[in-house]
């Protein structure tokens, strides 16, 4: 009863800590969770651009050209590339969430398997979209 506390080595350790040093261990699950939120907010900002693009349809042809010119610039293309990945990530990870909502794939191996599927798929779909975009020009 009055035993000393167990030596530090045998004490249970948080799953978020590396066993040897006790430093915080990075997890894919929490990173993907915050990325889902971040991509959603980024896409929300992107709706301003979409609306600007649509509104330019009501102006002069030169107004529309100005929007297209901005989107075609290096800065515009970087933004569009980011939004392309954000939309595919949010879409794929959103489907992952919908699957969880049905009570499926909630075991740890399946959570990681789904996570890698979403990451790979979002990058592949982004590349496919941009290759298609350049070939449709």
């Amino acid at each position, binding site marked *: 009863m009055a035993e000393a506390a167990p030596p530090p080595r045998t004490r249970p350790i948080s799953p978020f800590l590396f066993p040897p040093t006790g430093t915080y261990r990075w997890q894919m699950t929490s990173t993907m969770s915050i990325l889902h939120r971040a991509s959603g907010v980024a896409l929300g900002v992107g709706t301003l651009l979409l609306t600007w693009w649509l*509104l*330019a*349809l009501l102006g002069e042809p030169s107004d529309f*050209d100005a929007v297209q010119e901005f989107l075609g610039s290096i800065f515009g293309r970087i933004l569009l590339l980011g939004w392309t990945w954000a939309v595919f990530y949010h*879409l794929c990870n959103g*489907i992952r969430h919908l699957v969880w909502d049905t009570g499926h794939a909630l075991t740890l191996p399946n959570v990681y398997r789904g996570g890698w599927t979403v990451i790979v798929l979002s990058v592949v779909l982004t590349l496919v*979209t941009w290759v298609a975009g350049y070939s449709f020009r």
Partner: protein
Amino acid sequence: MASHHPQKRLVGPLGRARGLGSAKHGLQHWWAQRVSAIALVPLTLWFIFSVVDLTGADQARVHDWLSRPASAILMSLFIVAMFYHLSLGVQTVVEDYVHREGVKLTALLLVKGLIVLTAAAALFTVLRVAVGS
């Protein structure tokens, strides 16, 4: 411990959660986010496909595309579902990170106001192009 009595229920977890909360709307936000998410899966894929097809297009071509009934209907639905989903998502983000009641309320009103304004502008544009002049 009476609640631990094993009993077969014909109601699932979702059915049990519905109608909870003081206003009986405890599940409404969660459910609306899921419904709009499901609607956005095909609508978003259609939107991406359309935008890729319109890469580098001039005003006349995009105007012509949007004035087609199928484009106008799907774009309107995309706008409504997307801004609704955005509004629900942003609400959750603000409620999670802003804890002072006054700041939270102000932030929600500002962000949701901006979303409604942007959504109205986008939707008006689509209707204007589709109906003509």
